């Protein structure tokens, strides 16, 4: 366990610079920016008391993994009805489900690029939680497949399939939108 000064210094280096990332993840997992602040504050307290367990590798995966755990604790307490059962993620990771049932033509890249922010946000919010967290960790937080696989304790192949399905669902949702 590092001394007080050292712990405070680590906290300043590891946690404080990555608050935007922490808020982004918490915002997408809780669905509200206001709740995200509560969760991130709680996560920061946990991060400070666990700062001795920080191993010197990427600070963001370390912090985000605490934020993610705090989100689930928070959701279990505040919105128990929205918790997605772990089993459903495993079922969704089946090889064929959904991906090739043709739900209509894919939208063109141009349409996706011009989609308005509200439509994209709605599409992300509509994703099942296991897809949503992988998408946010990768496309918003910028974590690598490997970092996400380690954080979620899932194989890299699962990260890849969840990410591709999440993106495809968003693309289809945007294409369907008027």
């Amino acid at each position: 366990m590092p001394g007080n000064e050292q712990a405070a210094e680590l906290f300043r280096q590891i946690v404080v610079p990555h608050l935007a990332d922490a808020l982004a993840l918490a915002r997408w997992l809780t669905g509200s920016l206001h709740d995200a602040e509560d969760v991130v504050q709680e996560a920061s307290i946990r991060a400070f008391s666990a700062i001795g367990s920080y191993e010197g590798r990427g600070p963001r995966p370390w912090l985000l993994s605490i934020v993610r755990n705090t989100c689930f604790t928070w959701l279990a307490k505040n919105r128990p009805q929205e918790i997605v059962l772990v089993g459903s993620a495993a079922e969704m990771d089946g090889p064929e489900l959904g991906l090739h049932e043709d739900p209509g033509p894919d939208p063109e890249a141009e349409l996706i690029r011009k989609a308005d922010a509200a439509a994209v946000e709605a599409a992300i919010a509509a994703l099942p939680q296991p897809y949503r967290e992988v998408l946010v960790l990768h496309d918003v937080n910028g974590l690598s497949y490997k970092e996400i696989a380690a954080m979620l304790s899932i194989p890299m192949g699962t990260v890849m399939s969840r990410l591709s399905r999440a993106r495809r669902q968003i693309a289809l949702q945007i294409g369907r939108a008027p």
Partner: protein
Amino acid sequence: MTALSPSDHLLLHALADQELDVATAMALEARVAAEPALAAEYARILALKARTKALGKPAVAPDFAARIAALGQDAEPKPAARRARIFSFDHPSWWALAASVVLTAFLAGGGTYWFTALPQGEASIEDAVADGHHRALLAASPIDVQSSDRHTVKPWLDQKLGLSPPTADLAAQGFPLVGGRVEVIAGNPLPVLVYRRRQHLISVVAKPLPNGSVETAPPVSKTVDGYNMVSWTGGGFHYWAVSDLDPAELANFVDDFRKQ
């Protein structure tokens, strides 16, 4: 449009995410260039990635950032060090703490004086009294004002809290006064008198009764968190005496205290 194989899909995403090794990436790029279906899917993936990224991250409000940064600055894991710091009187945080506690209690009481606040559960107050005594023993100094002279201790408490309990002089009975401190119990700053018997310290916490109350209650002995405790009411205060002194001596102390 040609249907792509599932592995093509995954590889295209990985290519867009720059997660492929050079050889695989080069081979796939060649296929993308040659096959329109792959090219269209690849373009969609890149567009979607860009669109999601453009949503950005929430702005960190300055007051929120400051609040989080403060977590690291204020935290001091060692309780003894923390207490010593809070209760050194020349430290500004003591004044800030005392002021905020008094102000909060005052506001919560809606203008009535703080000691008329809702009665707390007796057990939780006793726990807090025992905890306070325990912390004080661990702290660098168990007292905030060190004096065996009750004419020093009493005005000090008076100045800090605007009240002070009768400060008995029990040196002749073998319980010299050591000093006083302030304990915050259930949100109320309360005066604590500290006496000594050989190497044992006795903390006497005094909680004022509501104005005009002449309630009295005889001493009741018990054990709380491993400490012996005697509580009684009289003279406008409710008292708790807590110590690791043995129960008989503590009872004697309380008798002497009440006679003064």
